């Protein structure tokens, strides 16, 4: 994962002489409005290990991933950007625009070919020749392919890049397509969630910088350290589930007592994410703790699995599951033992789903 080559070494490899390199450093110093004495310092920095360049692209998305990223408390987003990576392109944050912005992409390919991380937020639409997402007059998918072909590895931020998310929900009018289905020859790490937890995002980046590799991934390409458990497994309301104590309606007596939200649609039993263990916004709370069921936003196609309020764990495996969950849910109200049975059923369903997906999505 690490970038062994310094910028200087990369330039030499591309046939650029040391003289030209030093001239580049002088020009950079002058371009920054600084004196010639800075040229030497820039040269020194470029000859030693640089911060890992990150190109952060945006396709069809809502920018919630970027917003989540800047909420990170440890490390602070400002520290990541100033001290850990070199965020050379991110159209949401970068100072330049237009030609000056797009020029950076080609500069990055020239300087860091095969050595930069491509962070993808959102996904490319493929209908209408890709022109439902236009950047610089061209389809976004072109830019994505070009940068991907020169990158070292890809981070698929959020559920858009990982699975398709809301614009890919039925009937997916723009044919919005997740990254791993468009780019098939590069390693992709999926960091799903709509959005992912801030500290999961910075955790993935810092792991890659620290250990020079991807963290261990599951069969679907997600880092196990954040996505191996279901929210239900780690939920602090779990004892109420096991005891058959449920919220029947929002703001009822059970809601005020913090009972289990399974019957008002919580998708925690089938959702792999770190919300229950890490919580959100500096570990303050998470959806279940605030009183609303989990939407399942880190799962593939969570938009098309029936209402967020139906007590159904997975519509994808059809009638059998719906019947099981409804039937068990109906008996559940007072019976702890059957509560466990319901959970077992949900677990089986989830397991089946993983098995179904495992082969197809393996990267």
């Amino acid at each position, binding site marked *: 994962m690490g970038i062994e080559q310094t910028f200087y070494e990369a330039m030499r490899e591309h046939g650029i002489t040391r003289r030209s390199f030093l001239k580049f450093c002088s020009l950079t110093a002058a371009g920054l409005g600084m004196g010639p004495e*800075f040229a030497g310092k*820039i040269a020194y920095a470029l000859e030693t290990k640089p*911060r890992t360049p990150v190109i952060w692209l945006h396709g069809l998305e*809502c920018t919630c991933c970027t917003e989540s990223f*800047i909420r990170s408390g440890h490390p602070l987003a400002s520290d990541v950007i100033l001290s850990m990576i070199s965020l050379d392109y991110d159209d*949401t944050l970068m100072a330049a625009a*237009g030609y000056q912005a797009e020029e950076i992409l080609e500069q990055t390919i020239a300087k860091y070919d095969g050595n930069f991380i491509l962070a993808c937020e959102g996904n490319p639409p493929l209908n209408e020749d890709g022109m*439902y997402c236009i950047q610089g007059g061209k389809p976004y998918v072109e830019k994505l392919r070009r940068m991907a072909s020169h990158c070292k590895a890809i981070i698929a931020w959020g559920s858009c890049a990982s699975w398709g998310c809301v*614009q890919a929900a039925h009937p997916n009018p723009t044919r919005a397509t997740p990254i791993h289905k468009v780019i098939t020859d590069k390693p992709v790490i999926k960091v799903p969630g709509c959005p992912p937890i801030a500290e999961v995002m910075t955790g993935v980046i810092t792991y890659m910088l620290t250990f020079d590799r991807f963290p261990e991934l599951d069969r679907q390409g997600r880092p196990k350290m954040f996505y191996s458990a279901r929210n239900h497994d780690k939920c602090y309301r779990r004892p109420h589930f096991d005891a058959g104590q449920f919220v029947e309606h929002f703001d009822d007596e059970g809601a005020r007592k913090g009972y289990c939200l399974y019957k008002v649609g919580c998708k925690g039993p089938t959702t792999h994410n770190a919300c229950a263990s890490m919580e959100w916004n500096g570990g303050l709370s998470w959806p279940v703790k*605030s009183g609303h069921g989990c939407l399942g936003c880190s799962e593939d196609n969570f938009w098309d699995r029936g209402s967020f309020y139906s007590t159904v764990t997975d519509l994808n495996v059809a009638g059998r599951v719906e019947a099981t969950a409804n039937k068990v849910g109906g008996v559940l109200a007072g019976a702890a033992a059957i509560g466990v049975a319901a959970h077992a059923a949900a677990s089986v369903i989830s397991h089946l789903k993983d098995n179904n997906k495992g082969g197809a999505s393996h990267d």
Partner: protein
Amino acid sequence: MTETVTANGFKLDTGGQRVVVDPICRIEGHLRIEVNVDDNNVIRNAVSTGNMWRGLEVILKGRDPRDAWAFTERICGVCTGVHALTSVRAVEDALGIQIPENANHIRNLMMLAQYTQDHLVHFYHLHALDWVDVVSALKADPKATSTLQQSISSWPKSSPGYFRDTQARLKRFVESGQLGPFANAYWGSPAYKLPPEANLMAVTHYLEALDFQREIVKIHTIFGGRNPHPNWVVGGMPCSFSLNENGAINMEWLNLVSSIIDRSINFVDQVYIPDLKAIASFYKEWTYGGGLSSKNLLSYGDFPNVANDWSQDNMLMPGGAILNGDLSKVHEVDVRDPEQIQEFVTHSWYKYPDENQGLHPWDGITVPNFVLGPDAKGTKTDIKQLDENAKYSFIKAPRWRGNAMEVGPLARYVVAYARGDEEIKDQVDGLLHDLDLPLPAIFSTLGRTAARGLECSWAAHKMRYVFDNMMANLKAGDTATANMDKWEPNTWPGDVKGVGHVEAPRGSLGHWVHIKDTKIENYQAVVPTTWNASPRDPAGNIGAYEAALLGTPMADVKQPLEILRTVHSFDPCLACSTHVMTPDGEELASVKVR
């Protein structure tokens, strides 16, 4: 080529050099701006193009209306929550659901927190670099920055050592040669006017604000479980109060909300507002970018003081429409009236049965129709120049009684000012007095930026007011947060329509829903950036971005700093504006797109 005058009174000249800026960065989503400049590099024609389409309303068709908030919330993650709130309001309106007082207070608190955080992030992280030269900050004397800071604010982080540390960090960063998000920008341009010490102060606060903004949103985390994209529910809020049980929002969390409010007020009043005034004082000569703001402005009004009462008298931020710059008359706006709000697609990449007819959102249709005009340059997948006489944007053209309108903080402030709102008047008059500027000065790029800052302060203080009201309500024994009487679909009428509106941070936002047999039959949204980034309409009216860019001189056409300034002053949100609407998924599916 030719000089023309638009229906809304702007002079256009499509001769001279064409300058294309795509992408416009530091915004949400994908936007393109093309301008024509004359021999003196003054902008004489402007073309605003929404570059993306996601089709969310197609996706909503046939779904459970109680789920719609979650889908529409994903229209935008920057102004997170605003579409969710608009959506639950629309569904509640359709189904005749009254929400509890506490739910109204919590929603107001969450939306005010959103204003505070969103405006702060916009100013420092999306807009400041149009005015602040990062590299110049390296030349500052930290002592001079300290003196400047202490002369304008009582903010405690103001010592020379503090600014020296920041400067040293910035220096290390720049000397590394890896400029990250600051690379290839316009540093050193003559358009930058701040002295080095002011630049260092602003850059320091860029970093401070980046760290602080994540505190403000914890109000969403407490009531909605997380941010971005907190949770909502039709009928109220999903969170409960429990002052006697251990399972819901209790005194500890309420204390945290109260503490966040206090800290937000301090940060905005001691950092943001003084910075805004200091920066503005160096750009008083830069009076460009007024555009539509001195003519037509729209605000729906928002923040109901008492739940379920939508009269303007009950709004903490009163709304209305201003036409032709006549501040003596505020027109009432009716979002249900088919004659008032209409959308046109003559210049948008959509198809209507009658291309010159506008449609009210309840009757609207959208079928994408991506075609370039005869005078466009390049190819379908490599556009060099658009033809604004034909279709040229994924944004529709919404009009109020046929007029192109500007929405957003400046529109809200001018409407509230015209209505005689004392608080707003005091804020505006105070700022103008401090900067020694007359009232018309607010009809400008800087006026838009200043109104957003004032509104950030207003919102932070209003959080205190709403929180205190909520506590008084709890004290009186009312702890309800949700009305579940009409939760079950079997209690709903067979065929109903509803509308919900919110004043989002970027401006007036409306969702129109048609529910038939318990499912969404049609769902449409008209969002702030649809108004502001609007293309031309069949009558020839240009939109707010296009109008605002006219007449602006550029120091160097290769460095589009002036374009960025004015466009950023609107705080564009393209994912919002261009998800756009359609009632009929089947119709769309029949369109041949390849």
